């Protein structure tokens, strides 16, 4: 029964020479890849929603969301250094939990990676479109059909640019990504430098106006520290993309652990500092629920120019999210192609050492989603897919600790049981907290996935043996 068949650990690396990726990345590249994938323009809006749901205690919400992610990140760090294969959670599940679960995880990872790329491309187009239309660019070509347009050309354009860069060279992509990430961090530091001197402890009172536990407020909005944490969690993932770089890291034992854990620590620090500067600068009621809280705070402080600089820099640096997730999706598809779930010819590596064919196929897929589909309605599915992947990684960690306690672990997470159960429990809680229609859509997606597996995937995987 191939459903339960486990891939032998030795078979994890590619057998064919023309399937081997070039090892060109070191830990600073990976760290920047992670931070670039995690921090998008969400930080510009997140404080507003968070403060609306939790008040100044949104600071606690950030810490709790960061802690659940830390459990997942530690599990990823241990597994990716033990099994440095490009398929991330899909590869670990294939080795540890069996082919059927691996298929479900791979199918869910498509939701996470492809939908984030498409959503962010459409978001970028939302900034670029209004700049283009005055120059005579037809408005019909700046939005998808569900918004009354024809096709979202700017979204497809930015995907094409990022995909070309990734096909041209992994190291070149990583260098440009690092520069953009530094721009991003510099502008967020600028916000903190301007807002933090105005810190007034009075603004933190009352600290927890909506309580700790999640509850339905009279206006039909779920409030409390945990309600805000459940939203904020989804601004934290992306560090997992680093684990898909396992076959391209110069020194995977060290680089992966530093990249994964380091990028999460860096982003938690960035988020908490920005949040503290924001809630300290103004009473939260004045920016809670604002669609652009950071800009509002800066304008109230008479720093309109800084507000514009922060907003413009965020948009310039937004493609790093595309880069991180498109990179991750192409590597996961690459491994699925090697395993026979996709045509094996797609797994061929180009002369430049990049998986050009599978990158092109991935880019076409996400470009179709971004250009034509109603992205607003399906964006939240990315969160559901991520939670399934994180849960599987927590489970793989615990199973391997039992099954192979003495195997070499270049990075050994402390308190493995706490970390594994924390990742699984935290993600299960967040999954059932998702809107019901998102949960149902996610289950529907996986039902389709299972049909595809039994009609097609199972045979392909066996044939590849």
């Amino acid at each position, binding site marked *: 029964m191939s459903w339960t068949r486990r891939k032998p650990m030795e078979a994890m690396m590619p057998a064919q020479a023309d399937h081997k990726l070039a090892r060109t990345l070191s830990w600073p590249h990976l760290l920047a890849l992670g931070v670039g994938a995690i921090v998008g323009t969400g930080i510009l809006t997140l404080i507003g929603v968070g403060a609306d749901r939790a008040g100044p205690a949104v600071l606690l919400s950030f810490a709790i969301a960061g802690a659940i992610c830390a459990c997942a990140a530690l599990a990823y760090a241990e597994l990716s250094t033990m099994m440095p294969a490009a398929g991330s959670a899909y590869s670990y599940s294939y080795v540890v939990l069996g082919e059927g679960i691996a298929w479900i995880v791979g199918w869910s990872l498509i939701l996470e990676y492809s939908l984030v790329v498409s959503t962010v491309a459409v978001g970028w187009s939302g900034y670029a479109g209004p700049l283009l239309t005055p120059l005579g660019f037809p408005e019909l070509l700046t939005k998808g059909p569900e918004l009354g347009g024809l096709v979202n050309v700017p979204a497809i354009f930015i995907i094409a640019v990022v995909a070309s860069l990734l096909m041209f060279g992994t190291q070149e992509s990583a260098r440009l990504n690092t520069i953009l990430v530094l721009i991003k961090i510099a502008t967020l530091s600028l916000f903190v430098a301007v807002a933090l001197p105005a810190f007034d402890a009075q603004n933190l009172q009352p600290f927890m106006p909506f309580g700790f536990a999640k509850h339905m407020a009279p*206006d039909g909005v779920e409030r409390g520290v945990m309600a805000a944490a459940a939203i904020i969690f989804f601004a934290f993932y992306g560090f997992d993309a680093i684990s898909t770089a396992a076959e391209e890291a110069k020194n995977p034992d060290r680089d992966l652990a530093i990249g994964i854990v380091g990028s999460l620590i860096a982003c938690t620090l960035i988020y908490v500092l920005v949040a503290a500067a924001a809630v300290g600068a103004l009473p939260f009621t004045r920016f809670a629920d604002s669609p652009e809280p950071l800009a509002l705070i800066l304008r109230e402080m008479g720093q309109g120019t800084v507000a514009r600089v922060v907003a413009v820099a965020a948009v310039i640096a937004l493609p790093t999210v595309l880069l991180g997730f498109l990179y991750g999706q192409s590597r996961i598809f690459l491994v699925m192609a090697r395993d026979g779930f996709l045509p094996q010819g797609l797994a061929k590596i180009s002369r430049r050492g990049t998986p050009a064919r599978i990158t092109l196929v991935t880019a076409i897929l996400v470009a179709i989603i971004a250009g034509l589909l109603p992205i607003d309605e399906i964006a939240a599915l990315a969160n559901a897919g991520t939670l399934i992947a994180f849960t599987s990684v927590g489970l793989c960690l615990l199973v391997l600790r039992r099954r192979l306690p003495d195997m070499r672990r270049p990075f050994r997470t402390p308190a493995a049981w706490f970390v594994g159960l924390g990742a699984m429990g935290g993600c299960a809680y967040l999954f059932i907290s998702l809107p019901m229609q998102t949960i149902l859509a996610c289950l529907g997606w996986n039902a389709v996935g299972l049909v595809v597996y039994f009609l097609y995937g199972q045979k392909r995987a066996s044939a590849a043996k």
Partner: protein
Amino acid sequence: MSAILAATLVPAMPAKSPAYWVSDNDYPSGALQRKEEGPVAFSLLIAPNGRIANCMITQTSGFADLDERTCAMIASRGRFKAARDENAAATYGSYRGLLSWRLPGKLGGPSYR
């Protein structure tokens, strides 16, 4: 006028959570039809008895119906703890807030990426 006053006044805190002030049922029907939405910033003058003495829009949503309904709802539902002066006596206070009108029942949630 009230904006100038507000700057010199003691801040007042709501007696009941601002979450009680407005619900989806309060969406102005015209705005609902025209699919208008957006944030409204407001400034309140709070009387010593905790009632709202004045409501002023400090930043418009761009839609008159939404701006008007903001002050109407808050004036009828908002209750405050009286602001206290340095002798702990009830006095006039100020409160500044923001209300984002968002069309009810939008599908899914944003990804906050």
